C-alpha cells in the first residue's frame, strides 16, 4: 500500500529548511553607538534617522526586560549578529537577484505567487530587501510600495511624521532595540479614496547563523482607502539562537479599511519578539489574520487603538506550538472612540510538550460610550504533556459597554480520531485533519496559497510523528 492515502499535497520538508552559506558583505557583533553609526552610514541615512537610532539605543539601555511572559533570558544580544547585508543590492527584476538567493525564493514559490495574483513583492533576505517590484497600475493609482530605506530617503516628511509614532521606542525594550538597529522592511502609502484591488505581499526570510532581523513595516492608509497586506515569514533552521524584533506600524485613516495577514514560520530556535500596532480613524476597519507556527519563543500581541468613533477591529488568529515551543500570542484592543467594536477570535493547538498561551487585553476608555468587545479563544491539546493557558485582561473605564469573553480548552477527541480511522484514514493523517479543521476559520480568511501553506505546516507537524 502506498504511504500517502489522504488527499493532501505531498510535503517536502526541505522547502522550509533551505540553507545557503552565509556570505555577508557586512557584519557587526554586539551593540553600541559606533555600530549604530556604521549601520546608518552603510545605509546612507539622513542625520535625523541616525539621531533617532541613537536615542532609541539610550532608551534600550534604560529599559528592563518585560517582567512577565515566557523566559527570554537566553537572548544575548552581544552574541547576535545584528545586521547582515547580502551581497546583492536592490533588484527591480527577478533576473537580477543572485542565484543562491533566488534558489531559496524559488523553493518558496515567490515568483509564481507573484505571477498569480500579487500586486507587488518586497521580499526581505536577511536584513536588506533584495527584490522589490510593483505593478505599473499601482503606480498609476499613486500607491507607494517601496523599501523602508528608500522611504527614509524619498519620503522623509511622511516617514518623520509616522515612523515609530505608533509603536514608540518606550513601548518596551525590544521596541527600543528595533528603533536603534531596524533594517529593511516595507513602506506602503495608499492615497485618499484608492482601493488596492490585489493584495500586496512581503516575504521575510532570515538566512545567517545568529542573525537578528529587525525589519520595519510602515503602512499609511489615507481617508477612504483600502488595502490587503500579506506578510509571510519562513526561516531555515540553525543551531544558534536567533532573534526577530520587527515592528509593524499601521495608520488607518477615517473610513479606510486594512486587512493585515501574516503567516509566521520561524525556525524552531528563533525568539520572535515582534511588535505590531495599528491606530485607526473614524468609521475605519482593521482586520488582522495571524498564523503563528514557528519560533522557539514568541511574544506577539497585535494591538489596535480604536481612536475614531464607529471604528471596528477584528482579529483572527491561530497558534500552533509543538515540542520545545512556547508561543505566547494574542491581541490587544484599546477603545478610545465612541461606538467602537472589537472582536478577537483565536484558536491554539499544542502538541508534544509545546506550550500555547493566549493573552488578550481589552481597554475601554472613559469616552468610549457604547463600545463592544468580544473575545473568544479555543485551545486544543493533542496530548498530556502539552500546555495551554488563557490570560484575558479587561480594563473598563466606561459603564456603557457590551463585553463578552469565552474560553474553551479541550483535548483532541479519541472518538474523532477513531471515526476518521474507521474510514481508512491513518492516525497521523486523522489528527492532522482534525487540527486543520480546527484551524479552518483562519485558513478561510487567508488567500489560497497561504491557506495551502498553513495546511502544509500543520501536516508537517504530524509527519513522522509517533502515536
Amino acid at each position, binding site marked *: *500500500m*502506498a504511504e500517502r*492515502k*489522504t*488527499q*493532501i499535497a505531498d510535503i517536502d520538508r526541505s522547502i522550509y529548511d533551505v540553507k545557503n552559506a552565509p556570505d555577508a558583505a557586512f557584519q557587526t557583533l554586539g551593540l553600541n553607538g559606533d555600530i549604530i553609526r556604521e549601520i546608518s552610514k552603510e545605509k546612507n541615512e539622513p542625520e535625523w534617522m541616525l539621531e533617532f537610532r541613537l536615542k532609541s539605543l539610550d532608551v534600550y539601555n534604560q529599559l528592563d526586560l518585560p517582567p512577565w511572559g515566557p523566559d527570554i533570558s537566553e537572548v544575548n544580544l552581544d552574541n547576535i549578529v545584528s545586521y547582515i547585508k547580502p551581497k546583492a543590492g536592490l533588484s527591480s527584476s527577478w533576473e537580477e537577484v543572485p542565484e543562491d538567493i533566488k534558489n531559496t525564493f524559488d523553493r518558496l514559490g515567490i515568483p509564481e505567487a507573484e505571477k498569480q495574483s500579487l500586486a507587488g513583492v518586497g521580499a526581505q533576505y536577511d536584513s536588506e530587501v533584495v527584490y522589490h517590484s510593483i505593478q505599473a497600475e499601482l503606480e498609476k493609482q499613486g500607491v507607494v510600495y517601496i523599501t523602508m530605506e528608500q522611504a527614509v530617503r524619498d519620503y522623509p516628511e511622511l516617514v518623520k511624521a509616522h515612523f515609530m509614532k505608533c509603536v514608540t521606542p518606550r513601548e518596551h525594550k525590544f521596541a527600543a532595540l528595533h528603533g536603534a538597529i531596524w533594517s529593511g522592511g516595507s513602506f506602503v502609502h495608499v492615497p485618499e479614496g484608492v482601493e488596492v484591488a490585489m493584495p500586496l505581499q512581503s516575504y521575510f526570510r532570515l538566512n545567517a547563523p545568529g542573525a537578528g532581523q529587525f525589519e520595519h513595516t510602515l503602512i499609511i492608509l489615507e481617508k477612504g482607502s483600502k488595502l490587503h497586506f500579506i506578510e509571510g515569514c519562513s526561516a531555515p533552521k540553525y543551531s544558534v539562537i536567533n532573534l526577530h524584533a520587527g515592528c509593524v506600524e499601521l495608520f488607518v485613516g477615517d473610513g479606510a479599511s486594512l486587512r493585515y495577514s501574516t503567516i509566521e514560520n520561524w525556525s524552531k530556535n528563533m525568539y520572535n519578539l515582534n511588535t505590531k500596532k495599528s491606530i485607526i480613524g473614524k468609521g475605519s476597519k482593521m482586520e488582522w489574520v495571524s498564523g503563528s507556527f514557528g519560533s522557539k519563543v514568541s511574544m506577539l500581541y497585535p494591538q489596535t487603538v480604536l481612536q475614531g468613533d464607529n471604528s471596528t477591529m477584528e482579529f483572527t488568529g491561530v497558534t500552533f506550538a509543538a515540542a520545545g515551543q512556547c508561543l505566547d500570542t494574542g491581541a490587544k484592543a484599546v477603545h478610545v472612540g465612541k461606538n467602537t467594536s472589537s472582536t478577537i477570535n483565536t484558536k491554539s493547538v499544542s502538541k508534544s510538550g509545546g506550550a500555547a498561551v493566549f493573552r488578550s487585553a481589552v481597554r475601554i476608555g472613559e469616552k468610549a460610550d457604547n463600545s463592544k468587545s468580544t473575545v473568544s479563544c479555543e485551545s486544543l491539546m493533542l496530548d498530556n504533556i502539552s500546555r495551554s493557558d488563557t490570560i484575558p485582561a479587561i480594563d473598563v473605564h466606561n459603564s456603557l459597554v457590551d463585553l463578552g469573553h469565552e474560553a474553551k480548552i479541550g483535548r483532541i*477527541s*479519541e*472518538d*474523532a480520531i*477513531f*471515526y*476518521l*480511522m*474507521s*474510514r*481508512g*484514514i*491513518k*492516525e497521523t*493523517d*486523522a489528527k492532522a*485533519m*482534525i487540527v*486543520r*479543521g*480546527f*484551524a*479552518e*476559520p483562519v485558513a478561510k480568511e487567508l488567500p489560497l496559497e497561504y491557506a495551502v501553506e498553513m495546511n502544509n505546516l500543520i501536516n508537517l507537524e504530524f509527519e513522522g510523528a509517533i502515536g
Partner: protein
Amino acid sequence: MSDILLEVSDIRASAGDKEILKGVSLIIKKGEVHVLMGPNGAGKSTFANVIMAHPGYTVTKGSIFFEGADISRESADQRARRGIFMSFQQAVEIPGITLENFIRSSKAAVTGQNQPILKFRKQLYSYMDALDMKRAYAGRYLNVGFSGGEKKKSEILQMSALEPKLAILDETDSGLDVDAVKIVSEGVKRLLDGERSVLIITHHQRILQALAPDFVHVLVGGRILMDSGASLVEKIASEGYKWLSEEALV
C-alpha cells in the same frame, strides 16, 4: 478460495476492568445479511467496535479473520482499507472539514487512488439524491449541526461511497421515521450485490422486513445465545429477550 468474509472466533473483550464480550464467535460469508439483536447492554455495540478495532476496548482472547487474513492486531484504518465499514450510532461532529472532502479523502485512502474532484462529486451527488439528502450537505462540516436523521444518512452516504465488502450498521435505523428507514434500507440494498455482506445491529423489525436477513444472532450478557433464521425476529418482537435469558440460565 473460501467464501468466508469474516470469521470471529471466541472473542473476549473488555472496556477498562469490565469484561463485556465473553467469548463470541461468528462467521459471515460473502453476500450474506446477518442481524445481531439483544437487550440493551448485551455488548452489541462493543462487538461492532471490536471488529472495527476501537482503541477503547481490549481484546483479551480470540481472533478475527477477514478474507482469510488474521486482522486481530490491525488498526481501524487498516481494517477499513481491507473493506470493513461501521456506521456509528453516534456520528462524531468534526468542524472545519466538509462532508465532501472527508468522504473524498476516505475514498482515496480506502482505494489507494486519488479521486478527481469533479468525477467524485458527480458520484457523491447521485448517492445523496438516492438518499434524499440535500446536496448542500456536501459542503457542510462533517456532521456538525446535523439532526439525528441527517447523521444516519451521512453514515449511509459514506457507506455508499466507500463500497465496503462488509458493512456493520450499528442501530442505524434507531430514531428514524418510517420513510427514513425505507431510504436507509434502500441504500443498504443497493450495496448488496451478492458479494458484499452486511451485519445489522438493531432493535426493530422494520429494517429487517426490507432487508430479509439470512441469519439472526442474539447476544445476551456478552454471549451469543442463539443463531437462527429470520423467524427468530418475530418471536423477539412479540416476546422480548426475557425467555432467552431464562433459557440461558437453565
